[in-house]
Every structure is written in structure tokens, then in C-alpha cells.
């Protein structure tokens, strides 16, 4: 996997990350289409995801929770806004209560996943995240999402200490 492009636009609160994989589009699509695969990359090892409901048809829902190091659970949901297997998935991603019911008082993020074949084999993956406000981004980082970053940063701290 190689990240080939990153674009951050503070004016529109949009982030684009593009990467390429050697696997073909059909196989990469399974990272979203297969809930067991999805839960292995969505959360970091310290905050694994468990997908309880998974329907990637238009208007379909994905319900998941992430389990923290102390056993605490953060529930989340996706709503499928647009889907064209195996190339395109657009979802709204938000927080849910402990029963998996969407918490509409909390902000949502729009995520667009686009898979295109790479010349000579492999796949380009483009992920576009659009946020609603700076406050929302701070809230997201303060809740749960931060934990994954901490784990990633812990590894960097160890390197810096060496």
C-alpha cells in the first residue's frame, strides 16, 4: 500500500487521501463489502470494531461498535447514500446510542470511497471525508476517534524516545 496523494482543504473542511494497492478492484471492494474485513480495518487494534448490521444497498445501514481498552463501547452507524459496486460507496457516518439507534444530536461525517483500476493491475482508492464544522471535528477527535490516533502516536513516541 502506498499513499499517493493527500489534500486537506481547511476552507471546505474536506480531506482527500488517495492510495494504491496491488490487489484488484474486486478484492479491494471486499474490504467494505465483507463485514468481517471491514471490522479489521475500521478500528485500530486497541479499539476493534464489531459490525452488527451490514447492508450496503442504497439507503441501507451499517451498525457497528468499537470496544476500547477498558471495555467501553462506542456505537456508530453508516447510512448508504450512494453505492455502485465495486467502484463507489458514499456513506453518512454518525454516532449511535448503546442500542445502535442513530444519535442525531451528534454531528455526522460524509465519507466517499472510490475504487478505480490501476493501469497494469491494482487499485487506486480515494477516500474523501467532509466534515460539517470545526467544532464537529474537535468533537469527533475527542470521542473515540482520538483513541486510535493515540495508539498510532504511541508507536511514534517510542521511536522518538530511541
Amino acid at each position: 500500500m502506498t499513499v499517493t496523494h493527500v489534500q486537506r482543504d481547511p476552507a471546505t473542511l474536506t480531506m482527500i487521501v488517495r492510495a494504491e494497492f496491488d490487489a484488484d478492484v474486486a478484492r479491494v471492494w471486499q474490504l467494505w463489502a465483507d463485514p468481517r474485513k471491514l471490522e479489521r480495518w475500521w478500528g485500530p487494534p486497541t479499539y476493534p470494531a464489531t459490525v452488527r448490521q451490514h447492508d450496503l444497498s442504497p439507503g441501507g445501514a451499517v451498525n457497528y461498535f468499537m470496544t476500547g481498552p477498558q471495555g467501553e463501547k462506542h456505537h456508530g452507524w453508516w447510512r448508504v447514500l450512494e453505492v455502485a459496486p465495486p467502484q463507489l460507496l458514499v456513506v453518512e457516518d454518525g454516532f449511535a446510542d448503546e442500542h445502535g439507534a442513530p444519535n442525531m444530536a451528534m454531528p455526522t461525517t460524509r465519507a466517499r470511497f472510490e475504487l478505480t483500476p490501476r493501469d497494469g493491475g491494482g487499485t487506486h482508492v480515494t477516500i474523501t471525508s467532509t466534515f460539517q464544522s470545526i467544532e464537529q471535528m474537535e468533537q469527533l477527535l475527542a470521542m473515540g476517534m482520538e483513541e486510535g490516533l493515540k495508539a498510532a502516536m504511541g508507536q511514534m513516541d517510542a521511536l522518538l524516545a530511541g
Partner: protein
Amino acid sequence: MVVDQLTPDQADRVFHALADRTRRDIVRRVLGGEASVSALGRQYPMSLTAVQKHVAVLELAGLVTKTRRGREQIVRADLDPVRRATALLDQFEALWRARMDRMGDLLAEPEQGATK
């Protein structure tokens, strides 16, 4: 929110400052509320001098301010909306890079013959 508030030089300093994970972590901590340099120093497995250097880089980029209160140096976030947004987007970038890494690891696993 106006992006071209930052001159190219300022933008360079902001991006340089945020290119380091420890510095991003410091920014995130002080976004949540002020912190003393010594308290920040206890958060990282490095010398207090190293943490002070990180804070100085952030100060130069205009991302934090440092004021003296008694014997303590207090660090606060000093971010206009553009810089706050940039700092936050940077953290989401780190999150997605980590996810992409995990995707790569999954795809590198041998393919299973039959799916359940």
C-alpha cells in the same frame, strides 16, 4: 473562513510544525484546554528540553502561545479557524493513513479459497 489569510511562509511553518506527531499531540491537548510545559513534558517519553523545543516550533508557527504564570510556563492554543481546521484535518489524515495501512495488511494476507 479565508484560506489565503496565511502567507506561503506562514503556511510552511504551520505545515512543518504539524508534520510531527508529538507536536500534533501537543496541539490537540491544548485545544482541549491550557497545559503547563512541565505537565506536557510528563506526557511524552522524552526529555523536558525536547518537549520545550517542540513547543517553541509550535509557537513560531503561531499555533500556540506561551505565558509565564509563577514558576510555570502555560501553553495555550492560538488558532484562527484556518489553522484549527488544518490541525484537525491533519489528525484525520493520520487516522486514514492508519486505516489504509490496515487495509494493505489485510490485502496482503493469502486469499481464502471459499468464503463462509
